[in-house]
């Protein structure tokens, strides 16, 4: 196999600038970032901290929607507003200062409120890749969330390794059969890739137990024993030290899993969006359908083979031919999926470049790790009829849980809606505010059919802060929120589903499906 000649080694300015992050999400992810357009509603401290972590890695463009004028209080806590900006449009100043961070990013602002926008130009939000809404009261958040909810679901892809051993494809079987363990010197013997050893051991296991696959601990132990018996022995009959055999034995637990399709992927393949394609289906679901047809056809019930192998103690040529076997099979599988996707596009009357071979390659490579995260709309979350009451109630019984923070924050939202001020804002009303917040929280819980939480000290603590936004806490949440957006944009890594609570006092956090 020939290696490609050295490409022009000097990287472009852009690759150099983003080098450390491209090592994480690849050129593929970076080009998606380049193309995306992020919308931020309200340039509060948290809002600008989120955008900071998106502008630095180089999103294509952002738009800030904010009808507020900059106040003294804004300037104190926000790094992207300066003292000269008091009284000016918060959207405009924040846009200007954020754009200073990265000359590659385009920035724009609309100094209108979301309510106005939703009324006057309802299509305004349709073209964004991700929309962030910060500090929006429930009454505005609900219509915005409904509008965005109707737009579709992001897909997230992660990476991991697994090896297909129980159902070897032909080239692998040939390779394994060509290796005769008995006729080797120790040097060769100790350099057989462990995948081959595992395959050999599995063949032996199958001979003893036709039609079965070692799943239980006792069965796996038998497989390990077979491996041990395959080791070379010294003149006293004691097994010699061979690192590759140790690797194989260690790998028994992790890699002798039956090559079935993981349930997360099966669910996706059986999803109505995958089965019932229309000309409005997005490329993800069309590719998924091509994958489904592959699995049910040439794939013989299996997903495409991944073209990569972990490193293992092995002699170079054997490792390379093994890698080549995996790689070539993966290439053939990708071609099948791609052909099928192209057929589907013709049937749906869509242009052939809707899905490229490169897309399919990327997709097939990660087909074992597909996840669809649907979340729930905010409307469902807050409506007592659809709220996840069970989760809230059971979490509240756990003294370690962060659920009380969630409930109190919902209470504070309601306090703000009723009084137009955060509890604890004024020293004079501190005590009455604590009492009022407590009663709001209890009422909220009663609506959900849950009895009081009795966390008075937490309610006290919230009032003590008087709705003030501690910058460092905003910066933390901003960093996390920005990364969640990048996950959607690059379709890599798994996002939160769906509520993340962080307690900065103890640095503990939890995720709840609400």
């Amino acid at each position: 196999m020939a290696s490609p000649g050295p490409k022009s080694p000097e990287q472009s300015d852009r690759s150099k600038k983003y080098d450390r992050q491209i090592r994480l999400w690849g050129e593929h992810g970076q080009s998606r970032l380049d193309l995306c357009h992020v919308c931020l509603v309200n340039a509060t401290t948290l809002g600008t901290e989120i955008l900071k972590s998106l502008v630095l890695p180089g999103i294509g463009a952002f738009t800030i929607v904010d009808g507020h004028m900059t106040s003294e209080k804004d300037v104190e806590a926000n790094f992207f507003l300066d003292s000269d900006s008091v009284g000016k449009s918060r959207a405009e100043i924040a846009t200007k200062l954020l754009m200073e961070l990265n000359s590659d990013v385009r920035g724009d602002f609309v100094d209108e409120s979301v309510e106005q926008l939703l009324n006057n130009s309802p299509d305004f939000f349709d073209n964004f890749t991700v929309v962030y809404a910060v500090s929006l009261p429930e009454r505005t958040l609900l219509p915005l969330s409904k509008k965005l909810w109707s737009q579709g679901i992001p897909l997230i892809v992660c990476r991991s390794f697994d090896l297909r051993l129980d159902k070897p494809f032909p080239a692998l079987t040939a390779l394994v059969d060509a290796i005769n363990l008995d006729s080797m010197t120790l040097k060769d013997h100790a350099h057989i890739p462990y995948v081959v050893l595992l395959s050999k051991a599995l063949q032996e296991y199958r001979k003893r137990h036709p039609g079965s696959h070692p799943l239980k601990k006792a069965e796996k132990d038998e497989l390990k024993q077979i491996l041990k018996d395959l080791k070379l022995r010294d003149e006293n009959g004691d097994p010699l030290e061979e690192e590759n055999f140790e690797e194989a034995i260690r790998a028994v637990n992790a890699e002798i899993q039956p090559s079935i399709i993981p349930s997360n992927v099966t669910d996706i393949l059986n999803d109505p969006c995958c089965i019932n394609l229309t000309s409005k289906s997005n490329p993800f679901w069309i590719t998924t359908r091509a994958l489904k047809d592959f699995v049910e056809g040439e794939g013989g019930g299996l997903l495409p083979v991944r073209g990569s192998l972990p490193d293992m103690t092995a002699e170079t040529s054997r490792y390379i031919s093994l890698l080549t076997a995996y790689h070539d099979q993966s290439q053939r599988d990708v071609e099948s999926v791609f052909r099928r996707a192209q057929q589907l596009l013709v049937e749906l009357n869509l242009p052939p470049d809707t899905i490229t071979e490169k897309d399919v390659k990327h997709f097939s490579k990660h087909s074992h790790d597909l996840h669809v995260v649907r979340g729930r709309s905010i409307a469902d979350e807050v409506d007592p009829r659809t709220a996840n009451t069970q989760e809230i109630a059971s979490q509240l019984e756990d003294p370690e849980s962060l659920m009380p923070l969630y409930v109190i924050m919902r209470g504070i939202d309601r306090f703000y809606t009723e009084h137009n001020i955060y509890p604890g804002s004024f020293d004079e009303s501190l005590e009455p505010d604590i009492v009022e917040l407590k009663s709001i929280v209890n009422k909220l819980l009663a609506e959900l059919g849950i009895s009081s939480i009795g966390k008075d000290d937490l309610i006290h603590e919230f009032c003590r802060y008087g709705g003030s936004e501690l910058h460092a806490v905003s910066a933390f949440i901003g960093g996390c929120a920005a990364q969640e957006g990048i996950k959607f944009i690059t379709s890599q890594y798994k996002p939160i589903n769906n509520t993340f609570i962080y307690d900065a006092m103890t640095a503990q956090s939890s995720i709840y499906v609400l």
Partner: protein
Amino acid sequence: MPWKRPLSGLYFSGWSVSRFEVMSGSVEMEVQSDDSPMPAAPKSWMRNAMERSGPFCLPDFDHRPGALHSVLGQIQVQFLFRRNDIGRSKAEVAANFINNRIPGVNVTPHFCKIQDKDEDFYRQFHVVVCGLDSVPARRWMNGMLHSLIEYDDDNTPITGTNIPLVDGGTEGLKGNARVILTGTSACIECTLGLYPPQVTYPLCTIANTPRLPEHCIEYVKIIQWPKENPYQCEIDGDDPAHLCWIHEKSVERASHFGITGVDYKLVQGVVKNIIPAVASTNASIAAVCANEVFKLATGVCKPLNDYVVLNQSDGVYTFAFANEKREDCLVCGRKANILNIKEDAKLEELISKLCQDDGARMKNPGLTTNVNGKQMTLYIATVPSIERQTRPNLKKTLTELGLVNGAEIVVADETSPMSMTFKLNFI
């Protein structure tokens, strides 16, 4: 609270610190707030929390006026930099930017290595925040701060001499932050296991059975370069000519073995040991550090106890836990350091013991001792002339060198600002 120091009026520092991306670099910066009265209407958003006591406050925190100084060792304040700042000292640029953006804050830049400053320099601060990119540098700062602690008759640190250390670091979508109340909580040295040794490939793989593109690059880097010495100097990872040479040779070696995947980017990554980094994770970890400084400075809430990890790859995961202080810790333990060793061991065995993973994990220790009242250099690797003179000692046994059971050896190493004394215990 034995570590407590009278602090207040530190809103600015806690605030500005939060704006730092904790990343690598080779600068050092001092961030300090102004001693003069605060401007008229600042930080009302934080005042509520600070002026009212609450259920999670530190008990009897002393609110005397004072100033907060903190050191941010080796930080790269990424988002404070603009294109036309390239080539200027990072410390200076960052300091200027903050001073201009936030009225009333006074940031003093120091463009130097952390090791260039002495005890008196570090003694003036109330909190030290590290965003260092290497474990040895962390260990050095940890050793420095612990050496400043004075203990009373009960062996308790004297309030005011123990400066808390806040430390953070990231790699890709993972990060961690910790608070070390020096003298009280587990220190960096107690928990060296948290910092895994760097990934290395066995030499025999690199030389004989390469399988990965990395193996080929490593071969050129550690075997071919010293042999052919194309530029008559050591590898400079920032010199494109050097990288090109390594790239070309690695591709040759890879194609000889039928290995694919050697490209310029990978060569760069392996040669410079580049760790992936993203702005968002850095922002979150920097924020945790800043928040901890804020807590330490104001007493508004108990500090983190004492370590938190963050992982943003599957949802967002944080986990906080307390590390255990090691009684026999070389830095914060209050016991004499005993070195158990065989009487007939050679000096080189003693040195390799000091460098072992389960021991002191030293890098390049220099050893001196006192034999019959006379100062004697056993071995020092860092000064070439002394290294030549003392090299023969490596092969001598401890007895041949005149060392007896209970003899004290003074060891200096780059991982600590102070030399350490070990007492030999023959076994």
